[in-house]
């Protein structure tokens, strides 16, 4: 068998979600990873340090002195048109918000991974989804949005890493992979993405004419900045950003449906919650309750239209999150009062069980409908 054939055989591996991100980053031609240890995502940097990609692809891996430093290293790398990324967990991502706001305004492509844990404060190290607001509503200062991907499996941790870089360079914007401690820590089968070479400098100069690689005589200096002292100028930048976010909303919505065709009751959940809810839907179906589930894969852009369409067909919706109820606000905005939208969640690092979700579906939605009817 020749080498090409060997490479083409899909190689199934067993690994943690965090490890899958590290492998996928190397394979998709990432130029630089800058991070700071925090549970439950430290395996990302540990795996990279173990794999020593600087000896193979030339990728730079550096442990920074803080999350503040690592996100600003990402800014520096992204400003050179290099595929740059960082990863952290909730408290660390809070510390990065300054840098994220600057990167969004400077319109630089980069990937940020948040493997969420229970908060607020130092919180717990167990999985949570309570950073939804921070991720999709801004987080840092000013009017900006992050494309937010919500993986629900180890396979998606790998796939979303590749997709995140593609989206980041397509729209020149930071892309957030919003995972949680379960997806980061659990081991599953994964088929890693194929190797892509890192961009050579000529390629970067062509694809990223704004990159600061050194100024040839033929062009004006490239300046990466987020500063405009003139309000009119700053408003123009804001208008441009909003137009970009609008385009992202039009083109990049991703979601998955499960048992939705004849569903009378819809559960909306992402990430780990969606895995729990899928089981709850199966249990409901076994009891004769026509339940279905919609899993947003992109949290921004949010699948507003898809949820709105379901509001015309189902009797009620239940949003399930590992938080006090954050995404439920966006579901309610999409439904706009047409059917009841209830919430069930656990906080502080607790993962709800399928039984709990099924009970909540019955108590909060199904039984209420019977009362109304």
């Amino acid at each position, binding site marked *: 068998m020749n080498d090409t054939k060997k490479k083409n055989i899909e190689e199934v591996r067993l690994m943690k979600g965090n490890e899958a991100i590290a492998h996928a980053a190397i394979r998709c031609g990432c*130029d*630089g990873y*800058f991070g700071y240890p925090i549970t439950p995502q430290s395996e990302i940097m540990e795996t990279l340090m173990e794999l020593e990609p600087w000896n193979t692809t030339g990728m*730079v891996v*550096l442990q*920074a*002195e*803080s999350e*503040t*430093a*690592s996100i*600003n*290293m*990402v*800014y*520096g*790398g992204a*400003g*050179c048109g*290099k595929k*740059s990324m960082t990863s952290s967990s909730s408290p660390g991502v809070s510390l990065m918000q*300054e*840098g994220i706001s*600057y990167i969004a305004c400077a319109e630089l492509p980069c990937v940020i991974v948040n493997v969420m844990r229970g908060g607020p404060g130092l919180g717990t190290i167990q999985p949570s989804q309570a950073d939804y607001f921070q991720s999709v509503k801004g987080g840092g200062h000013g009017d900006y949005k992050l494309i937010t991907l919500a993986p629900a499996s180890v396979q998606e941790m790998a796939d979303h890493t590749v997709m995140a870089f593609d989206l980041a360079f397509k729209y020149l914007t930071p892309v957030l992979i919003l995972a949680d401690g379960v997806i980061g820590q659990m081991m599953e089968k994964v088929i890693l993405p194929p190797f892509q070479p890192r961009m050579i400098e000529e390629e970067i100069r062509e694809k990223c004419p704004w990159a*600061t*690689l*050194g*100024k*040839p*005589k033929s062009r004006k*200096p*490239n*300046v*990466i*900045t*987020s*500063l405009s002292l003139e309000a009119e100028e700053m408003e123009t930048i804001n208008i441009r950003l909003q137009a970009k976010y609008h385009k992202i909303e039009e083109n990049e919505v991703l979601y998955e449906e499960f048992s939705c065709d004849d569903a009378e009751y819809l559960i909306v959940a992402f990430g780990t919650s969606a895995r729990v809810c899928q089981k709850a839907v199966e249990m409901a179906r076994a009891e004769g309750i026509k339940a279905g589930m919609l899993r947003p894969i992109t949290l921004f852009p949010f699948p507003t239209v898809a949820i709105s369409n379901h509001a015309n067909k189902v009797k009620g919706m239940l949003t399930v999150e590992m938080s006090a109820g954050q995404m439920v606000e966006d579901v309610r905005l999409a439904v706009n009062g047409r059917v009841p939208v209830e919430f069930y969640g656990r906080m502080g690092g607790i993962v709800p069980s399928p039984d709990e979700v099924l009970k909540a579906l019955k108590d909060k939605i199904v039984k209420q409908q019977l009362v109304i009817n």
Partner: protein
Amino acid sequence: MTVNEIINPANLVYEKPKVMNDTPMHYCPGCSHGVVHKLIAEIIEEMDFQEKTIGIAPVGCAVFAYKYLDIDWQQAAHGRAPALATAVKRLLPDRLVFTYQGDGDLAAIGTAETIHAANRGENIAIIFINNGIYGMTGGQMAPTTLVGMKSSTSPNGRTVPLNGNPLDITKLLAQLDGTCYVTRQSVHTVGSVRKTKKAIRKAFENSMMNKGTSVVEVVSTCNSGWKLTPEASNDWMVENMFPAYPLGDLKDL
């Protein structure tokens, strides 16, 4: 002798560096920034490094450094320039990467980034303008403000019980194994300008030879913030700043 006879290349002893842009000056008359900017432009031109240099601008008066030098720039968040420079240099190891930072940026909000970049021995040059005050925000107390020195947030003069001690961060940086060249200079006389130019050139050469981090502190004036004339500022600096921040090389490996 006619004018045209005088204007011939043999008689040319000084000209504006080509790396310097024609930008309306935003720095106050008497400010040290302009001199240091010009020196950097001259050195980049002399080293023929215009196409290979990436400057990292700070937050503070020098936030607009990128308007003056005809090179690629990144403008960092307050204090974060050494983190940006770290990534730029590691990803583009054959480029000249320098940060240009003031005392508030480098020695207060960016202390961690400064110390850790220097301690890792990043192959970058750090140009540090120390005028003991926050110029751009209107003359507030800086980490390097001298005891007794008045600022808008120490209107009766800095006191140790209330404000703590001035931070000699350059001395601290000289202690770190990652730094190869740490020097303190000024630009208030022709002689001192020449010494500073030599120091910055050495810092740039060090970073291209991967010798580690070079730090050039320039003890500077902020006549607007100090509320003195440019001339009186120079005298005040010599009398008060130099005893606290003595000039010379702190480390030269």
